[in-house]
């Protein structure tokens, strides 16, 4: 059975400026051992999606659609039932390791808490297990660290503790919301490697949320690029980065300065300008009726503004595969079946990219 199946998940926030649709019709599935990345800029709805899965939305928020964990819709669960899911079957790692741990409790106590809650372990057993977990996440001198308070640890170590805590009950699904954004690159690499290896070893599923295309590209099997609360492009990571299809994904990629580009410039050539996406992210409270990216898109037509574009396969129907791709200049073999983008001008967008 499919581990997680999210169907038309929408989250509406009651803000001062009126209802804001923070998440719009997110749909995806996830199997054990699979990793999914949600990538997008601030306010695109990626964190709200995570909180909706956890049932930890702010009080002013309403979720609709379905979040099915092995067939059971979590949105219909009572608060008490949800408490048995959280930390047990779905666990989460947050962005700020400095503030996400209770300053007044020892590390061991905080890791053991979920164990005694869900596994009904006694104090001694919970501590023994906590010690093992600290070793699993690679904290040196774990026995001593068990009795430490968070302020005695570095940022990277705290994030390891957070991961140990999330893993404590052997969850089926791990949600990591910007787990390395607050960390230095060298620490980021260690933490990402750790998470990747643990997910592999333990065979759980993972949703990794990040604003950083690089982090996403190196860490997950499949990606949803989010904009204005919804998915604008989704597919296997390799396919997406190989065939950036949605104008927003293309714009995001082009706007990112990439390491090693300077050496490729011709000597004496004037600095290349970065491509930019004009305009700003729209307010969630008054999103346009049609494509949320329309106002910043170079390819916009009236059609875009009329209705939200559906997610359509980037791979054209089998019948006209050759003719459809000839103009875009993409070898048909590379097109993957489950690569989708929500754009009515997909062909133009891809053609534009290839001609550039």
């Amino acid at each position, binding site marked *: 059975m499919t581990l997680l199946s999210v169907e038309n998940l929408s989250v509406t926030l009651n803000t001062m400026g009126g209802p804001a649709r923070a998440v719009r019709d997110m749909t995806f599935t996830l199997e054990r051992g699979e990793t999914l990345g949600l990538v997008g800029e601030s306010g695109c709805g990626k964190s709200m999606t995570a909180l909706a899965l956890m049932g930890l939305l702010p009080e002013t928020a309403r979720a609709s659609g379905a979040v099915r964990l092995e067939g059971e819709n979590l949105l219909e669960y009572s608060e008490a039932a949800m408490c048995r899911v959280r930390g047990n079957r779905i666990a989460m790692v947050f962005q700020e390791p400095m503030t996400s741990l209770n300053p007044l409790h020892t590390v061991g106590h905080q890791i053991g808490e979920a164990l005694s809650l869900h596994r009904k372990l006694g104090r001694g057993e919970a501590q023994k297990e906590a010690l093992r977990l600290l070793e699993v996440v690679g904290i040196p001198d774990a026995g001593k660290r068990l009795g430490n308070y968070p302020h005695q640890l570095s940022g990277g170590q705290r994030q390891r503790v957070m991961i140990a805590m999330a893993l404590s009950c052997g969850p089926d699904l791990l949600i990591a919301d910007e787990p390395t954004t607050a960390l230095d690159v060298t620490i980021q690499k260690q933490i990402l490697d750790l998470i990747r290896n643990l997910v592999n070893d333990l065979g759980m599923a993972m949703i990794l949320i990040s604003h950083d295309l690089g982090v996403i590209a190196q860490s997950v099997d499949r990606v949803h690029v989010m904009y204005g609360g919804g998915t604008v492009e989704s597919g296997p990571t390799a396919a997406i*980065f190989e065939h950036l299809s949605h104008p927003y994904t293309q714009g995001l*990629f082009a*706007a990112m300065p*990439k*390491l090693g580009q300077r050496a490729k410039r011709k000597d004496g050539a004037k600095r290349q300008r*970065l491509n*930019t996406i004009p305009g700003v992210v729209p307010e969630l409270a008054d999103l346009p009726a049609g494509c949320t990216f329309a106002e910043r898109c170079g390819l916009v037509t009236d059609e875009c503004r009329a209705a939200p574009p559906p997610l359509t396969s980037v791979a054209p129907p089998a019948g006209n595969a050759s003719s459809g791709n000839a103009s875009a200049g993409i070898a048909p073999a590379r097109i993957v079946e489950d690569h989708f983008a929500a754009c009515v001008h997909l062909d133009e967008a891809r053609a534009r990219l290839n001609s550039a």
Partner: protein
Amino acid sequence: MTQPGANGGGETLVEVFDLHKHYTLPKESLFRAAPRVFALNGVSFSIKTGRSFGVVGESGCGKSTLARAVMGLETPTSGRVLFREHDINAIGREELRQLRRNFQMVFQDPFGSLDPRQKVGRIIGEPMDALERVSSDERQGRVVEALEAVGLKAIDMDKYPHEFSGGQRQRIAIARALITRPALIVADEPVSALDVSVQAQVLNLLQDLQDEFNVTYMLISHDLAVVEYVCDEVAVMSEGKIVEHGPTEQIFSDPQHEYTRTLLDAVPQVAPPR
């Protein structure tokens, strides 16, 4: 203003000699000496007019302290900072104030670096007001000029910072730095709080301004890609020291120091589309 050389690199604008900065932490124990932090531990470099000098390093490596020391906002424990051959820590307070028109700063946080109680016109005019008496007409004219240079409109003068997005606020901060037509702008993590699409707009703006006004940048960042993109020269800092220093191409394509290599290796990369 000094005339730059033909290829944009001329005389030396800033020179830093063996800069040290130690902080004393609160005592942890009654009987042991208070611990000290060596934020800067012997840093030397120089920046030439019209060039972009980048400083990269991880948090706590001393790069922000260095930026503030160059700006004369932090008195070094030892060492010298020379701006056009004036030692900014040795000259008098008034002289330093007059010298300040030549170097301005752009900060990281586009929400914290603008006084929420002041209108944009006043914020941008501040460095000018602090240094000289100008007629209100001239003041107005120069504020508008600065606003337009960063792609904002004259009417934005009468708005408050909270009416702008993060990217626009960073433009306002840059306009403030431009108002005295400085030779040097020290930018401490100017884009790290911005989303990628907005970051690109600001980076392009910095580049355009350099072409237009021949301004020299000292750019502090933890983001290697940003530094590589903007800077002609890079210094890599670790634990209060510059461990490697040289032309950008060389540092990024052929790093010599172990730490630089570790840093470069750690950056997650996206394979460019084929």
